[in-house]
C-alpha cells in the first residue's frame, strides 16, 4: 500500500505520528496542560526529527561505503581512456579516432541528424565538441572559415560531404571526417 508513497512523506508522517503520541503522553501526565505545552511539543518534534535524520544518515553512509567498495575501488585500476569510453561512449570514441587522423587546431562544421538542442542529442553534441577540441565545432567556426567537416550520427554520411572537401576518416555509415582540399592536413 505504501509502495508508491514518497519516502520523505513517510518520514514526515512518522515524525507527525510520534509528535501526536508525545503530546498525548504529555497531556496524560500533566494536570496544567497549557503551561509548557508549546515548548514541549516543539522540542520533541525537533528530537524526533533529529533521530530520523540520524537513521537516514546511517542508511546513507552504509550505502555510500558499499557503493565505494563495490564500484569506485574497482575503477581505481581502470585506465582513464576506458573510463571515458564507458561514460561518453560513441562521441568519445569517434573524437579520439578522428583526432588520430586529423591533427592540430581546426575550424569544423558539424553535420548531424541529432537534435543538438535537447536530450541525448545535446549531450552527445557537447561531449563530441569537448573531446574533439582543438578540432573546434563550437567557437572557431563563428569567426574563422571552416576547414573541416564532421559528420556524426548522419545517415549515409559520405553522401553529405560538401563540395571542396574529401573524407579522411570514416566510422561506419554514420560518421565521417572530411577536410578542405586546399588545406592538406598532417597525417
Amino acid at each position, binding site marked *: 500500500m505504501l509502495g508508491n508513497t514518497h519516502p520523505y512523506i513517510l518520514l514526515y508522517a512518522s515524525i507527525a505520528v510520534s509528535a501526536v503520541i508525545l503530546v498525548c503522553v504529555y497531556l496524560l501526565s500533566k494536570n496544567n496542560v497549557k503551561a509548557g505545552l508549546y515548548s514541549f511539543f*516543539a522540542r520533541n518534534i525537533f528530537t524526533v526529527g533529529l533521530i530520523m535524520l540520524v537513521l537516514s544518515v546511517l542508511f546513507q553512509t552504509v550505502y555510500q561505503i558499499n557503493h565505494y567498495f563495490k564500484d569506485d575501488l574497482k575503477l581505481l585500476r581502470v585506465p582513464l581512456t576506458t*573510463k571515458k569510453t564507458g561514460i561518453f561512449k560513441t562521441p568519445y570514441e569517434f573524437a579520439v579516432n578522428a583526432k588520430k587522423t586529423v591533427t592540430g587546431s581546426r575550424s569544423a562544421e558539424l553535420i548531424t541528424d541529432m537534435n543538438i538542442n535537447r536530450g541525448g542529442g545535446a549531450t552527445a553534441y*557537447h561531449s563530441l565538441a*569537448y573531446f574533439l577540441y582543438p578540432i573546434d565545432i563550437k567557437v572557431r567556426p563563428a569567426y574563422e572559415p571552416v576547414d573541416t567537416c564532421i559528420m556524426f550520427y548522419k545517415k549515409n554520411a559520405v553522401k553529405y560531404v560538401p563540395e571542396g572537401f574529401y573524407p579522411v576518416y570514416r566510422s561506419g555509415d554514420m560518421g565521417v571526417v572530411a577536410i578542405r582540399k586546399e588545406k592538406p592536413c598532417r597525417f
Partner: protein
Amino acid sequence: MVFILGVPVLAGAIFYKCLFPGENPFSPGSLSVSFGAGMGILGQVMLYTGMFHRGINILNVTFWMGTAAAVCLLVYLRKCVLKKPAAVPDTGRTLPGARASLAVKVLAACATVYIATYVFYVFMHALTLPVFGWDTIASAGFKAKVIFNERSIRHLKYFPNASFPLQLPFMMAWFNIVLGKWNDQYVKIFFPLVFMSFVIVFYGFLRKCTTRMWALLGVALLFSSNLFIAHGTISYRDLLMLYYNVCCIMFLLEWSRTKDDSYLVLTSFFAGFGASTKLEGYVYVLVYILLFTMFLAMKNELRKGLAAKCVKFSVPALSMSLPFVLYKAFNGVMVNQKFVIDTSIDYLSRIISTLLRFNESLFLTANWNILWFIMIVSSLANYKKFRADLKITALAVSVLAFFAIHICVAVFTVNYEQLLATVTLPRVILHFFPLSVLLIVLLNYRAEV
C-alpha cells in the same frame, strides 16, 4: 601539483597575512581561507592577462601573481614594521564547553569518524572519475580547453554561455597549462579541496560561536546533505559559489562580533570572487549589503568611521567584478543573460507554481535530507533567540533574502523554466544551504553540553 596549488595558495596566504597580521597563515583555518583567496586572485590575474591580450601562460600568470603578492606584502610590512604592530584581532576566541560526559565524548568520536569517512570518500570519488558533468563538458570545461589552447579570451563573445564568469575555466586552464597537457581526471582536485576548505572554515566559525562538540555536530549535519557531498566530487561551479557566498556571510558575522574591518575587506574580496564564479554572485551582493546595513543600524559601535567602512566594503568587490562586466559590454556580450525581465507573461500565475516547486525541492528530495524541516522546527522551538542574538537574526534574514532573490528570479525573468528544472533549483539552493545548518546549531546551542 606543488606549483599548480602552491602559487595561488602562497599568494592567498600573503593576502591573508596582510589582512590579519597577527594570525598564523599556515594554520588549517587560515590556509582554507587562503586557498579560496588564492584561487580568486589567480582568476583575476588570468582575467586581466586575457583582457589586455597578454598570453595566458605560466610566466605571465606567475609574474602577475607575484606582483599581487608583493603588493600585499608591502601593505603587510607597512602595517607591521613602519607603523605600530596591529593588534591581534579577536578571531581565535573559542567558548569552553562544560567537562564532557562519556556520552558526549562518544558522540564526538562518532561525528569525527563520520566526517572523516566522507572526506575520504569525496577525495577518492572525485579523483577516480574524469570530468563528466553536463555543465563542465558543455560550458566551463570547454571554455577551459579553449583558454588552454589559445592562451587568450580574445573570442569570448563566441564562447558558449559567453556571459558566464570565468573563474572555474581559469582554474581548470591553469592546472593544465602548468601540467603541459590536458588531463580530465586530476583537474578535479580543486573540488575536493574547495569542499575541504569550506568545511574547515565552517567548523572554525562554529567553533568560535559554540563548543567543539557543537561545531563537530554542525559539520556532521552539513555532511548529511547528499547534494553537498556530491558536489565535492563533480566539477560544477556551484560548490565554489557556495564557498565564497557562505564565507561572505560568516565573515560579515565575524565583523559584527570582532569589529575588525579586515573581515569587511575579506567579505568584499570574496563577494568579488563569487561574482567572478557565477552570475548569481552579482545578485548575492544585495544580501551582503542588507546584512552590512543591518549591522550598522543595530550596533552603534560599528558606525565609527562609516565612510571608510563603506569604501572597504564596496571597492574590492567592485574592482573584482566590474572589469569583466565592462569587458563583456565592450565586446558585445550580454552582461547577464540570466536576469532578463520577462514581460510576456502574467507574473502572478507563476508565483504558486514557483512556491510549490521550492517546497518540493526543499522537503521532498534526498538532496538536503530533512535539514530544512529541522531548521524550521528549531526556529519555532527557539523563536525567542531571534530577538536575543543578532547572529541568529542576521542568518535568518539572509536565508529569507536568498529565497526571495531566487523566487523573484523565477517569477520575473525569462529564466523561469530553467531555474525551476529538477537539476537547477537544488544547485542554486546549494549556494546558501549551509546557513540552514548554522541556524540549526546556533538555535539549539546550549553551553552546558
